[in-house]
């Protein structure tokens, strides 16, 4: 480290380090612009700043690693006889392949929650993905400029609404409305309303990202299609959407990630019944699919948010809940990796 003398405060350090850069800059220095030089103080600050940034990034990595380690040890405690584990050691099949959830009676099948999470997320995507992508086309390719700006701002605002607000809205407005209008006062809690609320929550994400996707397409695609005589609809359907497809998939997967991890809003409207699969089996309804839409059900996140704070640490029940958390983490990881994959497909 070529140390400059102690007295070399900025004005006096004309002959300090970094001489190569300084000499390259010297013509401009003569033209009255100060030369690009680092004082000893600045270099010291640089070094400390670098250490600071490094510490911050290590902290973040450490935190994420720590959470994963915590989740993994607590979650795997359900299946392995680890130290400090007071609960029963379970087999994978009685947890992942059983639909019978009755923790007080020592039965821990989490299939209803897995099926519930996948079901409600899938339904939400069925509603949100087409709506979001088509809105994206509209904003990027059809709307006049003032409307485009307005829509973008509205979408950004919608992303910021806390999920509990959606939940209260669902519980106090949507559920009674659906029940009164279509179900002859039978309760409306279940997949249908939860998926609807989730769809409303994730549409802004999908819209924002697909708008970006369409705006980033070269205008030559659109123009070329129209020059060849295609209608507006044909250009969108045959040219623009296929061209933007990798990024549209990324948008959808990000929406999916938000939907599968959502707990509060879903918890307030889904009915949280862990016995829903057994209930469906017993029912003799003629339209089982329609019935399933309005059967109170439960998901991984809703069960976690309801039971985790109230179960004794180290008990079998608590361990299985952590295993559910670990499963959710892994599902989200897979989704993120899938997003990366899809995103890379664009450049190829």
């Amino acid at each position: 480290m070529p140390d400059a003398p102690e007295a070399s405060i900025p004005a006096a350090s004309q002959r300090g380090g970094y001489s190569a850069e300084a000499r390259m800059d010297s013509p401009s220095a003569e033209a009255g612009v100060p030369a690009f030089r680092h004082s000893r103080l600045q270099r010291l600050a640089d070094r400390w700043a670098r250490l600071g940034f490094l510490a911050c990034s290590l902290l973040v990595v450490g935190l994420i690693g720590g959470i994963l380690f915590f989740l993994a040890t607590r979650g795997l405690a359900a299946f392995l006889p680890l130290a400090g584990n007071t609960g029963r050691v379970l087999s994978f099949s009685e947890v992942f392949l059983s639909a019978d959830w009755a923790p007080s009676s020592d039965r821990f099948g989490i299939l209803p929650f897995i099926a519930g999470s996948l079901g409600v997320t899938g339904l939400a995507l069925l509603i949100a993905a087409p709506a979001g992508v088509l809105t994206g086309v509209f904003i990027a390719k059809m709307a006049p400029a003032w409307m485009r700006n307005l829509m973008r701002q509205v979408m950004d605002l919608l992303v910021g609404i806390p999920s509990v607000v959606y939940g209260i809205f669902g519980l106090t407005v949507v559920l009674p409305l659906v029940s009164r209008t279509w179900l002859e006062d039978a309760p409306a809690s279940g997949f249908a309303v939860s998926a609807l609320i989730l769809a409303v929550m994730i549409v802004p994400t999908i819209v924002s990202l697909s708008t970006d996707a369409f705006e980033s397409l070269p205008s030559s695609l659109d123009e070329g299609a129209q020059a060849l005589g295609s209608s507006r609809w044909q250009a969108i359907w045959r040219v623009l959407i296929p061209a933007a497809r990798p990024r549209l998939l990324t948008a959808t997967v990000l929406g999916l990630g938000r939907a599968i991890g959502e707990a509060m809003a879903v918890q307030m409207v889904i009915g949280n019944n862990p016995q829903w699969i057994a209930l469906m089996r017993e029912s003799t309804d003629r339209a089982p699919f329609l019935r399933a839409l309005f059967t109170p059900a439960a998901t991984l996140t809703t069960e976690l948010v309801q039971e985790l704070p109230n179960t004794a640490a180290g008990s079998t029940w608590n361990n299985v809940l952590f295993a559910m958390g670990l499963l959710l983490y892994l599902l989200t990881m897979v989704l993120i990796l899938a997003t990366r994959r899809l995103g890379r497909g664009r450049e190829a």
Partner: protein
Amino acid sequence: MKIRFLAQTILAGLLVAGAAQAQTVTVMGSTALGPIVKKAAEDYMKAHPGVQIAVSGGGSMTGLNQVTSGGCHIGISDVFATPDQEKAGVKNHNIVVQPFTLIAHPGVGVKSLSAQQAEQIFTGKVSNWQEVGGKNQKIVRVIRPESSGTRAVQKKTILHDQEFAKDVLIQDSTGAVVTSVATTPGAISFVELEHLEKNKARVAGIAYNGVACSNETVKSGKYPVFSYGHAYTNPAKLGDPKVKQAVEGFLAFILSHDFQQNVLKAGYLPVDYVKSLKTKL
């Protein structure tokens, strides 16, 4: 003036130093019992400047776990200790009485249920209000999650330890339960009495065996559905005799006649109201 100010400063400094040496008692657990215990702590600290009492939440189970392992001095809880925790030496003190009542959507057309009817509704043997003298309408059972203290009380008192029906709606908090019952035709649930009193305009109270839940009916022994708020200690983990003394003093204060009159304002009943009853809840 200056001398007075100086004297005040020194006095304040001495007080702070004194507080730093004070016995600190930590209380953790039930968020439902938190406010009333906090009130007790404030009153107690006023009367005993040498004692600091810190009350924090975490939930009934956290309180029990922590007191068992020695992580806090007093664990407050809505539920009973598990046999394992009892074996570890955890000692129960009932500090308040919590009355519970059945509530329903105002349109169900039923004002009272017999104990048997209530049991059959929640176990699933009865599924239409018509079968218990009401409208021809499906019964929607709204209950709390499996780990909830309220649900444990309901299972013991109303269901006599039988399993709940499979066809249920589950809500996480009493507030959500009340909203759900108010907005779902045919809904029935089970909540603390104070939540019925706060929401009389939205939900209807249902009498149990012809007796409506109230402080008076609980006191007279006519109304049997209530639970205790518990404070647990683990005497083996209270090493320091001074801490032990402070803990015992605080618990005695909560159970004193004067403070027990205060719990009425918070929606609870004094423990001695029902001392004659031997229900284990």
